[in-house]
């Protein structure tokens, strides 16, 4: 939103209700009804930050609202402080409580985390909110309508003006959030924590930040609601209410700013409106309950059809169409079943700049990884020098990917060390290893599937922008400049890929081969010193495989990159690698140049089995092999 547009909307938000309220005869209660809708929208927006963006399910959101309402109520009604202070402190306390509630999220995910948030809420409603010094009995906490010097917001229409301003502020903050690296970090941990960590995103910190930000917003929303209601107590913020907010957010569409705001607004406005408009007695008394039944049914239908809500279902339909069109456009010049090949990409300079040839980039010593009784990696050691392409090969189950995970910090080796450019990484978490210069792809294709190609490229550059979270929310000019640079780089890559038609489509609509190419582009965008590729050819078209060799050489020769490559496609490995490390049963059984590896009996046996190796004359028992030779050559 441009600042001029924001100012215009702000003026409208203030002037319209105030003017209407003081000049027309519209009953005061109508402003109150709209105000309820606006406060509900504030609530859904605040929950959407945590649940929609960061993917952390909180069923106890009403607990944060209660914290905000109680805080502002106590400060304004009992300490006689200004409502401005009330709202600010409500936000701060809401954030602080959310931080505490979020702590278990560092260990727990999904359902179990949801359980702790419910526990938190019930503890609040059944105990904390009923403490006598807080509530003075069961009456609850009073929240007077705000007064600021000469301006009183006692009239519903005036308070509505204030709420609309608040809503505008939430909206702009949300826009700033989602277009910054902080918001992308949220989406990253929602989509795939491992991929996020490989881009240098600190999972724990980002999760807690999401809790705090959501808690701050919820605290303010709770205060806004409280000052509208004038009195709150423990039953205001029931479990029922909390779960209803979750339902509104899901009906509106997780992660959809417009969707959740509209959903909150409507669920706030409809019940009291019906109650006033429909005067037919038999229904009138039951209207609010009827609306509850309709709301719950709507929720069930929505989630059954599409867990991402109504908005999600609509969006998916549209994307499906666009994806088809994009595929056609891309394939116009290609053989129907073939995927595009990887073109030369613009590559940002590596974090540690050009390295002198011969520098040891990666030093893996004595790594042991065990899963239960299985030793997946067994005292593996090897080195990678600057400007080398090193192949890591071995039969299925040899432990290659496990070794990659150990290097990247994605599992816990029993022993051994990993050094990058001389720095010991062994005790660092995955995201710090990424920031130290390790870039990797994943065998299963590490992309944020629900994000677009462009968003993935921006996410990959997470660590390359260095502004802090507050600047992100304020969207300072420094932030805008930094984002412009990231965006330009992403667009450059998309253009080089020829993926303009796909740029704004979620990557889950791409084919396996296309995803691989985008994934490699993303990893390159992290500007790694060492590029670790885990089976890049899996799912790639043969033409793309051949072409990959040229690209890898180009990265080495023209961009000075060092590459470690896991690959089952042996011809590619032999073709492109300077050295090869062979892993079998978790052990390094051979290291050397391609020719040496080709004539290594152990390697052939590991790959082809004893029979074939014997047939090839590489094992002592030559009798059988002699007979079978003709067959093999023919």
């Amino acid at each position, binding site marked *: 939103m441009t600042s001029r547009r924001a100012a215009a909307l702000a003026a409208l938000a203030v002037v319209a209700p105030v003017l209407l309220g003081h000049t027309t005869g519209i009953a005061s209660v109508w402003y109150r009804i709209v105000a309820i809708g606006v406060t509900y929208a504030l609530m859904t927006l605040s929950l959407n930050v945590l649940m929609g963006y960061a993917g952390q399910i909180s069923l106890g959101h009403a607990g944060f609202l209660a914290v905000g309402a109680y805080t502002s109520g106590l400060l304004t009604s009992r300490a006689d402080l200004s409502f401005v202070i009330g709202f600010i402190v409500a936000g701060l306390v809401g954030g602080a409580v959310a931080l505490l509630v979020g702590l278990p999220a560092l260990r727990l995910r999904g359902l179990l985390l949801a359980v702790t948030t419910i526990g938190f809420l019930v503890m609040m409603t059944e105990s904390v909110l009923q403490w006598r010094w807080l509530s003075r009995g069961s009456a609850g906490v009073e929240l007077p309508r705000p007064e600021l010097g000469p301006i009183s917001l006692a009239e519903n229409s005036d308070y509505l003006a204030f709420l609309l301003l608040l809503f505008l502020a939430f909206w702009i903050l949300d826009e700033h959030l989602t277009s910054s690296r902080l918001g992308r970090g949220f989406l990253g941990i929602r989509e795939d924590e491992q991929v996020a960590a490989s881009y240098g995103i600190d999972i724990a910190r980002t999760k807690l930040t999401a809790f705090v930000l959501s808690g701050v917003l919820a605290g303010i929303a709770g205060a806004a609601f409280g000052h509208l209601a004038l009195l709150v107590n423990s039953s205001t913020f029931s479990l029922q209410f909390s779960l209803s907010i979750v339902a509104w957010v899901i009906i509106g569409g997780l992660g959809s700013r417009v969707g959740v705001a509209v959903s909150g607004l409507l669920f706030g406005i409809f019940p009291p409106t019906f109650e006033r408009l429909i005067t037919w007695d038999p229904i009138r008394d039951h209207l609010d309950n009827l609306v509850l039944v309709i709301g719950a049914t709507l929720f069930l239908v929505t989630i059954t059809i599409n867990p991402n809500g109504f908005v999600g279902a609509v969006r998916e339909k549209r994307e499906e169409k666009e994806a088809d069109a994009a595929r056609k456009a891309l394939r116009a010049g290609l053989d129907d079943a073939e995927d595009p090949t990887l073109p030369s990409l613009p590559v940002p300079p590596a974090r540690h700049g050009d390295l002198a040839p011969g520098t040891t980039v990666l030093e893996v010593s004595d790594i042991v990884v065990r899963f239960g009784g299985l*030793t997946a990696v067994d005292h593996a050691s090897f080195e990678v020098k600057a400007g080398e392409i090193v192949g890591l090969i071995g039969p299925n*189950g040899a432990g290659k990917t496990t070794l990659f995970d150990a290097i990247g910090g994605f599992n816990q080796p029993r022993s051994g060390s990993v050094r990058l450019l001389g720095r010991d990484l062994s005790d660092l978490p995955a995201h710090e290893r990424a920031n130290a210069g390790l870039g990797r792809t994943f065998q299963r294709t590490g992309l944020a599937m629900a994000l677009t190609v462009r968003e993935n490229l921006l996410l990959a550059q997470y660590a390359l922008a260095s502004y802090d979270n507050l600047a992100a929310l304020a969207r300072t000019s420094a932030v805008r400049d930094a984002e412009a640079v990231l965006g330009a780089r992403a667009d450059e890559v998309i253009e080089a890929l020829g993926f303009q038609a796909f740029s704004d489509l979620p990557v889950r*609509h791409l084919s396996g081969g296309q995803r691989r190419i985008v994934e490699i582009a993303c990893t390159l965008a992290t500007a790694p010193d060492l590029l670790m590729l885990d089976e890049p050819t899996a799912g790639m078209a043969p033409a793309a495989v051949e072409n990959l060799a040229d690209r890898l050489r180009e990265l080495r020769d023209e961009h000075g990159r060092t590459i470690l490559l896991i690959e089952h496609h042996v011809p590619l490995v032999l073709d492109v690698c300077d050295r090869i490390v062979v892993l079998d049963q978790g052990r390094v059984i051979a290291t050397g140049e391609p020719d040496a590896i080709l004539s290594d009996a152990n390697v052939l046996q590991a790959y082809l089995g004893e029979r074939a190796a014997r047939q090839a004359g590489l094992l002592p028992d030559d009798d059988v092999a002699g007979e079978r030779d003709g067959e093999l050559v023919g």
Partner: protein
Amino acid sequence: MSDDVTPRLQLDGIATGFGGNTVLHGVDLTVAPGEIAGVLGLNGAGKSVTMKVVAGLQPAWEGRVLLDGHDITDLPAEERVAAGLGHVTQGRQVFDGLTVEQNLRLGAYTLRRRHPERYAERLEAMFTRFPRLKDRRSQPAGTMSGGEQAMLAVGRALMSNPSLLLVDEPSAGLAPAIVAELFDLLRSVNEDGVTILLVEQNVAFALDVVDSVHVLQRGRVVHAGATDELDRDELAAHLGIGRLLTASVGRSGR
């Protein structure tokens, strides 16, 4: 080969995929009664999706699945077991919280529904074949060694007296020594007359046991034939181990 032998399993132009992406583009595959058939291919070639289509866990968009000549394309996975499929699944092979005997009993779920009286005899036969399972019949499966669990997985699949045993990537996640043991087991099961369809990425292990091979590449069968008549060069090229094989052949020719 006479053409009037009904294939144990036949896939006719199977196409399937996920969302807008097609993964299998018309796969044809035949398994003759009594053989061990192998499906080979690199990661991402469509091996496990093929297996899922046969099992009934992934719907076929096009094409038919025939078991002993009967069309089972529309049967749900459970009923395909009743129709004669047995599964040795990839990864966590057994129900680790249940005892050995309970695992075997679940394996006989379809058998016990139709012929409850044959269960005791079948269990006894299984214990005769695998005495180690008998010794551990009351032990939770999860506490056994990897090899014993693999043995139990095969035993459980055989309890329903299947006409076709589907074995999915046995080498994945198992120590090689155990894989070798498992393959020996499969061979002896096959010698007793059970037809086996084996999906495997590890060529070394697979080529040692299979009678025929289908090679998958990007969702298409690019090579099929009896193991003995294989053009190994072509096979190697398809499996991406080209020069490893040719190099070894070149050396031995010297």
